[in-house]
């Protein structure tokens, strides 16, 4: 199919295009020169007075896996209240608001103009389930990161200071699970949680019974990641999440990132790790200190993990914190233990405007986004569904673009928290170009996919979003409502050269694929024999059943890396 998008204001930061009026030509799922397409046959979309951007990329969103599924089961009450009817043959039905079903996840992202999502925390043993669900998410391109922070076999290698064994194991694990990168969640906590300990484990504390600290794990895995040349940096959820005073831990963690010009450590949902003070009563914001450090060091990137008020379902592999949160929220809790790999907890939570802590959390998230000067190293996320469902992105974009909107919100928030926050004194407003950076170009670059994703240059995948927004006429600072309206429902979303959304309605639910990293050289036979023995000690299943075949992925797209 050939498409010509005419006369749109194009925002394409990877090619340094800032709101110029351009034509975008699409042929066979790729972007081509305008001269290459046959104008008679091509579908012509008139985008004059509209904004054209690459498709959005969400770097951190829990959309699939056993944890999400348990969250769905726990939130029955929202599934019978919120549903989308099927529309044969264009789209299927689905339910859910905070933890939507797989089909709905795809449709809702596509309606906002997003075309790729990364599931950031899949325990390797359960990654088969994650892939099954990812296969069911329509339209979007997907990738998943595996949890390696508390893997007993890996910790044994680390304890023995066996660097090569460690590297080989990580390489094998990535190949066996068909995943895209490594995620660390509160390194070491899940091991300690097996003994009912682990709450508030600091980055320099020893992980009993091993002779290592979370810092060692971070350092070693950063090194392995560089040696294996993985496209995505280590995706780190810092220690002591959600505990007042944790910004000091975060600062210490940042220092473990290997020095480099490129990003070597990605700190995810930093908002939850940027609290000052020493109790819930005198909680404050640590965003200034953290962003100062991020601004000074090019090897760090962050995503904000913004909260929005209302119900959310917190789900994280930081099981002890979830157990503590359950005693604050007092609604329901599920704890999960994944053999010798990870643990998780799920607790639904309601963020309230008049609550001191919740209002401050809301401010801190925006402070982080506004205080980091380089938009290429900050990304918008809500840590869906932890902070808010991903459908709140339009609102967060508007908040970043309009100081007036932020000021209007302050009047509704807890007064003490507004006094403690830095946000009221920040005047910065994001431009549309910067929004295109933080939601499209920066995540693509961080995933190492900036040759095919996140831009509209010739040769890129034809993932395009067109929004009904005229940057020449609208003052985003004043008319923030029109920003929300435009981003809520994209006028057109084009995925792999197919129009999937037209006038905010999903009209096609195909064309998704799953990215994973693959290595040219398979692990050595000797290592596999060793591993087979080790596997018998730690796992309930055989090694052969653990490995996921490429045929189990819907539309697999391997990215070959060296190492």
């Amino acid at each position: 199919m050939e498409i010509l998008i005419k006369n749109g204001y194009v925002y394409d930061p990877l090619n340094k295009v800032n709101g110029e009026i351009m034509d975008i030509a699409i042929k066979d799922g790729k972007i081509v020169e305008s001269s290459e397409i046959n104008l008679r046959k091509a579908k012509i979309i008139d985008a004059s007075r509209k904004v054209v951007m690459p498709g959005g990329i969400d770097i951190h969103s829990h959309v699939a896996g056993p944890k999400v599924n348990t969250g769905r089961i726990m939130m029955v009450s929202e599934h019978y209240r919120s549903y989308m009817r099927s529309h044969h043959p264009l789209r299927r039905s689905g339910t859910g608001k905070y933890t939507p079903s797989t089909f709905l996840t795809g449709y809702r992202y596509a309606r906002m103009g997003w075309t790729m999502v990364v599931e950031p925390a899949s325990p390797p043993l359960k990654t088969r389930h994650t892939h099954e669900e990812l296969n069911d998410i329509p339209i979007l391109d997907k990738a998943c990161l595996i949890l390696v922070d508390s893997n007993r076999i890996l910790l044994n290698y680390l304890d023995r200071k066996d660097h090569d064994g460690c590297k080989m194991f990580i390489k094998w694990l990535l190949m066996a699970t068909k995943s895209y990168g490594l995620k660390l969640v509160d390194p070491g906590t899940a091991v300690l949680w097996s003994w009912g300990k682990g709450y508030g484990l600091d980055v320099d504390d020893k992980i009993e019974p091993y002779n290592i600290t979370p810092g060692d794990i971070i350092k070693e895995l950063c090194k392995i990641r560089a040696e294996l040349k993985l496209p995505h940096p280590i995706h780190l959820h810092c220690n002591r999440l959600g505990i007042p005073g944790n910004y000091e831990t975060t600062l210490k963690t940042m220092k473990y990132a290997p020095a480099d010009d490129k990003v070597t450590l990605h700190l995810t949902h930093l908002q939850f790790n940027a609290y000052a003070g020493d109790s819930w009563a005198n909680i404050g914001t640590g965003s200034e200190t953290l962003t100062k450090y991020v601004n000074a060091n090019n090897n760090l990137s962050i995503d904000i993990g913004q909260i929005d008020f209302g119900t959310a379902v917190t789900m994280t592999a930081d099981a002890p914190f979830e157990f503590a949160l359950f005693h604050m929220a007092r609604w329901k809790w599920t704890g999960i233990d994944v053999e010798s790999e990870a643990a998780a907890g799920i607790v639904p939570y309601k963020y309230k405007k008049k609550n001191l802590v919740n209002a401050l959390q809301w401010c801190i998230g925006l402070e982080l986004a506004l205080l980091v000067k380089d938009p290429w190293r900050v990304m918008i996320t809500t840590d869906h569904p932890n902070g808010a469902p991903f459908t709140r992105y339009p609102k967060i974009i508007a908040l970043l673009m309009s100081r007036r909107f932020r000021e209007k919100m302050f009047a509704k928030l807890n007064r003490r928290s507004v006094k403690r926050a830095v946000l009221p004194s920040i005047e910065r407003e994001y431009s549309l170009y910067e929004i295109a950076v933080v939601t499209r170009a920066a995540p693509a670059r961080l995933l190492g996919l900036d040759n095919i994703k996140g831009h509209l240059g010739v040769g890129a995948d034809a993932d395009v979003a067109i929004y009904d927004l005229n940057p020449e006429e609208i003052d985003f600072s004043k008319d923030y409502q029109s920003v929300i309206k435009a981003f809520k429902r994209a006028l057109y979303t084009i995925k792999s050269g197919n129009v999937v959304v037209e006038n905010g309605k999903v009209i096609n639910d195909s064309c998704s694929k799953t990215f994973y990293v693959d290595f040219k050289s398979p692990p050595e036979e000797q290592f596999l024999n060793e591993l087979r023995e080790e596997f018998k000690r730690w796992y309930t299943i055989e090694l052969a059943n653990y490995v996921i075949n490429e045929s189990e992925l819907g539309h697999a797209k391997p990215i070959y890396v060296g190492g």
Partner: protein
Amino acid sequence: MGGASVFLIKPRRSFKVPVEAECISPDKFAGLNLEDLKKLKVFEGNRTYRLEELFYIKAVSKNSPSASVKIIMEGNFSKVWRIGEEMSTGEIVIKGNVGPFLGFRMRGGVIIVHGHAGPWLGAEMRDGIIEVHGCAGDHVGAVLRGERSLKGMSGGIIRVHGYAGAEVGACMNGGLIAIDGSCKAMPGVKMSGGSILIRGDCEGKAGARMTGGKIVVCGRVGEVLPTFYIDGIASSVKVKGEKIKGPFYLFLGDVLGDIECRGRLYVSVKNNPDFKVFESLLETMSDDC
């Protein structure tokens, strides 16, 4: 009802799949003339119909639109869901069986059923009266699955003259549920207020995790949970002004729900001869004091 507009509704055919008819409610009927009323939307399975396509509707007596509304329903409505949802005034009389979610989140008015009612009768009720002359299904006056327990029945009266199913008054906060027959397991699970009166037997696990309120069982109880403490023997008990003659064993609990044990469970002495063992506990306690 002197000044009321009275409507008569009968089903046109027997339904095979559920019909979602939340529009059959005096609140929705009020202020509409017959023609508008016939155009209200109902679902049968996944298809939308106008109300008149599935039901005969007749205005028996018509008064000014502002008058209160009485709806008389004749026939088998056992596949019809959500009748009287969120109604706040008026009256519904059903001569026949009726399906699930009758009087769901009801805020006032009266519903009388001369037949059997389905599950979720008066679920999450706020106020009003429901009287069922036949039996009712599971979850009478209960909270919906997964909801916060605060959203349970908080007022009003449900009277069932026949039997009822399991989980009567789950997460109940107020009001009265009176069942003349027996009920299945777990009446008053997680309840924190209000009263449940069961004149027949109960399968067991009465008041599991209750943190307040009152459950009275006049018949046999399979067992009392081990997390309840016996407090004494009451000669009679008052339920919403009505005096029920006993004697009753009074249990306090559930210690799993609340350490203060503010829930009260009354169990008939006469019909539960196995519970004599509890009386010995009472004696030793009084000696110690």
